[in-house]
Structure formats: structure tokens, C-alpha cells
């Protein structure tokens, strides 16, 4: 028998949306999702969900708290600030590309651009800013882009996430596409995002403790011990897809941007806490 240890692309991609989450509008979806987790974890206050596994597991929380005096992302954020403030060759800076000069705006990303008909993530906006000013784009998953994005998140800490799905069929379609991705099984192991993060948060999968959907994107970019450095949300998406032996999408592909749109909408109202640390 042929043993396929190879990556299988979207094998058996079947939708399995728990009834509780089958709301028809984004706001109904979000409310149902939050209520579902509040019932699952009655001792966790709503804002506690930004801390993911640390809100659910006391041992993990203590380890995490002991790291907070000297967080491992500090230097990357300082580098990010320096890059953010250093003018491009044409004399302009990143600030010229963003609302409020790019300070305190993380909570509004990603947004749907109704003229370009696409989801704009913060990292996409950073690279488009570079290109509009005659600079080469940065690599998407780590390094400089994570540092700049991390600095921008740090100026937004505490601001409630405020993702909007405008009354526009294309915006709604992007949201629905992200939602469908989230609930679609994929890969040789046949997991959806929801298999772990809706159905099984608070449980262990081998040595890893699963966090709930709500709150996750509020932490990004994150410094993972596993990476030994900072990485973007799309780096994490690709890692999860690879773990279930599915072919990851390219970072900042339309599919991952739509996924980020849905996922971040689910965290509306929670404060930005990124950059943060994760195992």
C-alpha cells in the first residue's frame, strides 16, 4: 500500500459549523462565538480571553508572568520603532501612509477596502507603503516586518479591536470566505482551525495547550519560544496548516487575509495586547 506521508491539499474539505456558530451576520456570529466560550469558561472574564492559554491554565500563566519583566520582544520593538521613524530614500516616512501617522491604529486592521475590493492587513499596508515610496517590500513572515508591525501594535495597546464589515457584498464575501476557511477541514490529518480552537480549547494536544478563537489575533505579532523570535499572524497560520499536513497558503494571499479578517472580527471589543509572547 502506498503510504502518503506527503502533504495532501485540502483533502476532504467539509464544512462542520457547530449550530451555535451558524449565525448569518458577522455580528451574530461574533456574539454566538463569545457566548459559546463564556459558557465553556465561565470563570474567565471577557477581557481575559486576550491572554489565550494563560487565561485557562494556571501553570502556563505563572511561567508567562515570570517572563513579563524582560519580555523577549523588547529589542525587536525598539528596532521596529527606529525603522518606522527612519525616512525612506525619498525623505518620507511610514507615518505618511497611515491615519494618525500610524500611531494607535492597530485595532482597525485588517479592514476591507471597498475601492480595491480586498482585505488590507497591517503588514500589507506596511509593504504597500514601502513600494509607494520606491522601497523594496519586506519579507512577510518575520524580521523587519514583524518588528515594525510589533512597534505599531505597541502604540495601540489597550485600544479595543474594531473590525468593520461594511454593508458591501464584496466585504461580506471576504468575511464569509475567511469563516469558511476557519471551519473547513484540511490536510492529511483532516483538521479545521475550529477543530482545535472552537471544539477543544483548554485541552492538551500532546504537549501543546489549545487556546480559544476569541482573543488570538489581539496578541500579534508574537514572540514564540518555538521560533525564538517574532513572527506575524500569517506565519502562524502557515505553521498550523503545516502541522495538519496541509499545504499552507502564501503569507498575505487573499485566502489568509480573508481568514485574518474573520478571525480578528471575532475579537472585536477586546484590547490590543500585541506584541506578546507564546510558547
Amino acid at each position: 500500500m502506498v503510504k502518503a506521508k506527503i502533504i495532501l491539499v485540502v483533502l476532504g474539505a467539509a464544512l462542520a459549523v457547530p449550530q451555535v456558530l451558524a449565525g448569518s451576520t458577522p455580528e451574530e456570529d461574533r456574539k454566538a462565538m463569545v457566548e459559546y466560550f463564556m459558557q465553556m469558561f465561565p470563570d474567565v472574564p471577557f477581557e481575559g480571553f486576550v491572554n489565550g492559554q494563560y487565561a485557562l491554565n494556571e501553570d502556563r500563566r505563572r511561567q508567562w508572568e515570570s517572563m513579563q519583566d524582560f519580555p523577549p520582544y523588547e529589542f525587536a520593538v525598539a528596532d521596529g520603532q527606529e525603522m518606522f521613524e527612519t525616512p525612506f530614500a525619498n525623505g518620507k516616512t511610514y507615518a505618511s501612509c497611515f491615519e494618525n501617522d500610524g500611531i494607535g491604529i492597530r485595532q482597525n486592521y485588517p479592514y476591507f477596502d471597498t475601492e480595491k475590493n480586498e482585505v488590507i492587513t497591517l503588514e500589507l499596508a506596511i509593504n504597500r507603503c514601502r513600494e509607494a515610496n520606491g522601497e523594496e517590500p519586506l519579507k512577510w513572515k518575520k524580521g523587519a516586518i514583524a518588528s515594525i508591525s510589533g512597534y505599531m501594535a505597541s502604540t495601540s495597546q489597550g485600544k479595543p479591536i474594531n473590525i468593520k464589515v461594511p454593508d458591501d457584498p464584496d466585504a461580506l464575501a471576504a468575511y464569509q470566505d475567511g469563516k469558511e476557511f476557519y471551519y473547513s477541514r484540511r490536510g492529511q490529518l483532516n483538521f479545521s482551525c475550529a477543530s482545535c480552537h472552537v471544539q477543544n480549547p483548554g485541552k492538551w494536544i500532546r504537549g501543546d495547550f489549545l487556546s480559544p478563537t476569541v482573543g488570538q489575533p489581539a496578541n500579534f505579532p508574537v514572540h514564540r519560544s518555538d521560533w525564538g523570535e517574532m513572527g506575524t499572524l500569517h506565519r502562524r497560520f502557515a505553521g498550523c496548516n503545516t502541522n495538519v499536513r496541509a499545504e499552507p497558503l502564501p503569507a498575505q494571499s487573499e485566502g489568509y487575509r480573508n481568514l485574518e479578517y474573520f478571525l480578528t472580527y471575532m475579537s472585536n471589543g477586546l484590547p490590543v495586547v500585541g506584541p506578546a509572547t507564546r510558547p
Partner: protein
Amino acid sequence: MRQGLISVYLTTLVLSVTAPVFAEPSQGDIDRGKELAFSRTDGNCLACHQMDDGKLAGNIGPELADMKSRYPDREILYRRIWDETQFNEMTVMPPFGRHMILSKQEINRVIDYLYTL
């Protein structure tokens, strides 16, 4: 024509019998089954199930114990490992046979081992 259909039906029936009669497994079969069950790149049952002396086991699925009394019918256990989604649509257990994570022989070795628990 009708005869042809019947013979196709019978052929399908014969081919669908997945677990033939088994001789008593050898210690080698059982050891191989445990190896497959514990290995992260094969069964990785420990990702979700506590079992035996496995370390760092997950707790998504039930503990694997008393397997012979819980699954007296070997064929049913085989089918559930082959594709649990046929029994529980919402399961997160990978369809080990359908997605070619384990071969038929490998699933049978895992069962030989599970029946010792």
C-alpha cells in the same frame, strides 16, 4: 444483465471485508503496534489519548484502556480507526485509513497493541 449486476454486487461485498480472520498476534506484532501508536509521525495516538506508559499525552480523546471489552468486535474498531468521521461527523480524529496515514497492516498492528490495554 441482472446476473452481471449481482456478480458486481457480490464482488464489492467480498472486497469490502477489511479484517480477515486473525491469528493470535505475536509479541513482535504488539511491539510494532505500540511503536506506531506512539510515534509522532505515524499514529501519534498520544496527541489526544492517554494510554499505557505514554508521556506528554493529550486529553482531547478518551483514555485508551480496556479496549477489548469496549471494542469486542475487531472489525468495528478497525473501521473507527480507518475513518471515525463515518461514526461521528464532528470528530477531530484523523481518518487514518482513508487519508493514508496508516496502511491496513499498520492499523492492524495498532489494534493488536490496543487489545493488550
